[in-house]
């Protein structure tokens, strides 16, 4: 199976996903079962194994922004978490040039701290120096349109505001690998345009961006390549328009 993976010698690979299998062990709660004539709940806790990714392989190169599409529960987020290293493979492996940063839909970075402190601490965590962060704080505040809210704790932000700020912080540093897992969907149209621009800028500066989205328009506007995942398997990998057409054709 690993043989089908081909590395283009003329391009610089950033991420190699090699025959990746991911399995979850989940505790399933007791099922309803009939005992005699009564419907009772069995309290036995069973573990069930969910085979979330079944042998996904591909190579991502420099200057690529890769859209990841598929229906809900197809394994897109699992793949992103495996690339980040938050999930360990059952078999196969992921190789990456650097440790990726991932923007998910989850809540604030440091919920009780102000937006501004999140910018400072996020930037420092990414390895910038204090003067570097300070020099760019204004720019971030402009970019996110959060001028009036920047001194409020981040847990008071709406999901859109929080997503904007997180995106801006994560893109403070020129990345090798940035994973955006549906984090832009909550932003408004204006912000979506700006963030798409920024993703293109990262891609152009020898980075690789993975973008999980259900908005085919966003995918087509930003991505140079699209991967379609269904039921844990790689269905298609290639030109955005072709893959998006095949995907929309399959669900309609």
């Amino acid at each position, binding site marked *: 199976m690993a043989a089908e993976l081909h590395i283009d010698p003329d391009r610089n690979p950033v991420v190699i996903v090699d025959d990746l299998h991911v399995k979850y062990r989940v505790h399933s709660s007791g099922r309803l079962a009939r005992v005699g004539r009564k419907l009772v709940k069995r309290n036995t806790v069973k573990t069930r194994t969910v085979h979330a990714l079944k042998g996904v392989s591909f190579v991502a190169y420099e200057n690529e922004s890769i859209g990841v599409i598929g229906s809900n529960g197809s394994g897109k987020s699992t793949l992103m978490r495996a690339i980040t290293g938050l999930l*360990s493979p059952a078999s196969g492996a992921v190789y990456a040039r650097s*440790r990726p*940063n*991932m923007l*998910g839909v*989850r809540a604030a970075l440091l919920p009780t701290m102000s937006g501004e402190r999140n910018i400072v*601490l996020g930037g420092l965590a990414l390895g910038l120096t204090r003067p570097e962060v300070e020099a760019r704080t204004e720019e971030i505040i402009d970019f996110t349109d959060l001028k009036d809210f920047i001194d409020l704790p981040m847990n008071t932000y709406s999901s859109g505001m929080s997503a904007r700020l997180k995106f801006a912080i*994560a893109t403070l540093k020129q990345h090798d690998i940035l994973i955006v897992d549906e984090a832009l969907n909550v932003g408004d149209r204006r912000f979506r345009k700006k963030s798409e621009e920024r993703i293109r800028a990262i891609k152009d500066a020898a980075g690789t961006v993975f973008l999980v989205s259900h908005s085919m328009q966003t995918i087509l506007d930003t991505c140079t390549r699209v991967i379609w995942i269904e039921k844990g398997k790689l269905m298609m990998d290639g030109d955005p328009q072709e893959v998006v057409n095949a995907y929309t054709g399959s669900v309609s």
Partner: protein
Amino acid sequence: MSSEDSSIAAQAKALGLHRVGGRPPFFRYLAQTWARREFIWNMAKFRLVSTFTENRLGMAWLVLQPVFNAIVYGLIFGVLQGDARPPDYPARVVIGVFFFQFFRGCFNRGARSIINQRNLVQSLAFPRVTLPVAIVLEELLSALPSWGMLVVILPVMGHWPSVEWLLIVPVIILSTLFNAGVALIAARITVHLQDMTEIIPLVTRILFFTSGVLFDVGRIFDRWPWIVTIYDFHPIYQMVQLARSALMGIEVDPLYWLYFSGFALVFFIVGLRFFWSAEERYGR
């Protein structure tokens, strides 16, 4: 690591790609952490400042809380012990409680340092050890005012500042190393076993009442000399006794300096290694 993908693994390596979920070598990890020192410092500072601003008495609590603790526990244990109370009891209690407070803060809050910042850990790539270290730094900074208060409190109890007081500096340095080691170990174990967040406060409470913070080990365990011997190798007791010997001149076996330095270094180094060796698992 199956053999079938060994060729891909070899190619990836040749191209400068690392297996995701691996960790950098120990010394490179330390270098990466050192490069994040501004992050550690600002994290500690911001959090400390935000605790001031939330409460009306603000920074005063950094002093008031340990003082109240010392008064309450000192009185209760003072009455309970009756004649077994050691001489110079109030000074002993104040020093003991203030130094124990530093240990307790590092242990309790260090344990939660990863699981409480899961969002940050899952989003951004940075050496995770910075989080427990920031907690230890924050606890150190918040202990400084209470230790400063000792300059006022101890003369009232008849202990005037002397050159020996300078010995408190190495005690503080060693305590910080020891507490950091404990915090690192606790932070990792808590990631594996969340129940630790319930267990550790219990452990610190037991340690508070058993580590000789509020009583004189030699007097209380008079009839069981083997227990007294155990205390000779009790790092928290050593910490408290060394602080007392520096500030109030009580007699302490000079070997305690050696023992506690050993404990501090061993806990710190083992803690770093132990925390580092699970680096890829934090955030899962």
